[in-house]
C-alpha cells in the first residue's frame, strides 16, 4: 500500500499541501502535484501515477474533464480516482459518478475521512505495487 504513487490535483496551493501532508501522515510518501487538469495530464504522461486525487473547479481543465480524459486514455483508464471538492449537491455527485470517479469527498474533509475513502477505493480496485 505504501508504494502507491498519488497524483494530487488542485489549483489551491493550500489544499495541495493539506492533501499531501495528510497522505504522508497515513503512510503514503510518494506524491506528485499538479495545479489543474492540463498540468495533471502532462504529469501523468511524463511521471505516471497509480491513484488520482482531484479537485473539481480548476482553470484550464476541471476535474470532471480530467477524469473523462483519464478514463479514455491508456494506460490510465483503470486508475482509481477520488474527487475532492466543495460541490456537495446530489446532482454534482451523480455527475462525477457518471464520468466514473471511484469515490467522492466533500470539502472540508477530515484526515480520517480521506484515509477511509482511499482504503475503500484501494480495496475495490487492483493496484500494481
Amino acid at each position, binding site marked *: 500500500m505504501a508504494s502507491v504513487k498519488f497524483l494530487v490535483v488542485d489549483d489551491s496551493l*493550500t489544499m495541495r499541501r*493539506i492533501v499531501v*501532508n495528510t497522505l504522508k501522515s497515513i503512510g503514503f510518501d510518494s506524491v506528485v502535484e499538479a495545479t489543474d487538469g492540463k498540468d495533471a495530464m502532462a504529469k501523468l504522461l511524463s511521471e505516471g501515477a497509480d491513484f488520482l486525487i482531484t479537485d473539481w473547479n480548476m482553470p484550464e481543465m476541471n476535474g470532471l474533464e480530467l477524469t473523462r480524459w483519464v478514463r479514455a486514455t491508456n494506460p490510465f483508464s483503470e486508475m482509481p480516482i477520488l474527487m475532492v471538492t*466543495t460541490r456537495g449537491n446530489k446532482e454534482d*455527485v451523480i455527475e462525477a459518478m457518471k464520468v466514473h470517479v471511484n469515490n*467522492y*469527498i466533500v470539502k*472540508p*474533509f477530515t484526515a480520517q475521512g480521506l484515509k477511509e475513502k482511499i482504503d475503500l477505493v484501494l480495496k475495490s480496485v487492483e493496484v500494481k505495487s
Partner: protein
Amino acid sequence: MRTEDLKEVFAKADETLRTLDALPQSEQFFRDILEFVRDIVPVIAELQISIEQTSEKLPTASRQLDNVTAANESASTQILDIVERMIRQIEVIQEWFRAFSRETGGAVPAMNDLVGRIRKNHADDPDSARLSALWEQCTRALGTEQMLAAHVATLEAVKADCTSIMIALQVQDITAQQIAAVNKMMQSVDHGLNALLLHIRGEECGGAGTGYAHHHVDIVFDPAATYDTSTGRQQAADEIVTGLNNGKHSSKR
C-alpha cells in the same frame, strides 16, 4: 366649394370644437406631466452621480476583497509551514523515545540484577549502598517503559492536533471561492451600472473593464462553496456513491 368639401370642413370644425371643449380638463393633466418632468430631471441627475460614484468604488472594493484573499493565503501558508515543522520535530522526539526505550529496555533489568548482587556481595562496602541509591535515582528519572510509552502517546496526540490545525486551513480555499463569487457579482453589477450610464449620457465610467484585473478574480469557484464541518453533506454523498456503485456489476470499464 362642393357639398363633400363642406361636409369635410364641418367635420373638421366639429372635431376642433370638441378638442377646444376638452382643453380645460386637459390643461391640468399637461400641467401635472410637465411638473413631473421638472421634478424628475434633478433626481435623474442625482442618480447619475450616484451611479458614477458607485461604479468608481466597486473596483476598489473588489481589490480590497482580493487583498483579503491574498492575506488569508499568506497566513495559511505560514501556519502550514509551522505545523509541518512541528510535526517533523514531534516525529524526531517520538523516534528518540522509541530508540531510548529499545536501548534501555534490556539494560535496566540487567542493571537491577547487577546492583542487587553487588549490594548482596559487598554489603559492608559504603560504595555499594551509594551505587544502589544512585541507581534507584537513575531509574526514577529514566521512567518505566509504560511512562515512555505514555510520552510517545502524548506526542501522538499533539501531532494529531497539528494535523487538525492543518485540516482546518481548508477554510482558506473555501473562503477564497466565496470571495471570488462576491467579486464576480460586483463585476456584474458594475457592468449593469455602466450600461445604465451609457444609456444616460452615452459613455461609460468606472473600472468595469480593467478595475477587476487582479489575481484572484480569475479563481474558478463553486458559487455554493461553504465551510460546513458537519458530516451531513459527506454522508449524503456517500449514500449516492454507494447506491450507484451497488448498481454496477464490475468496476472495469
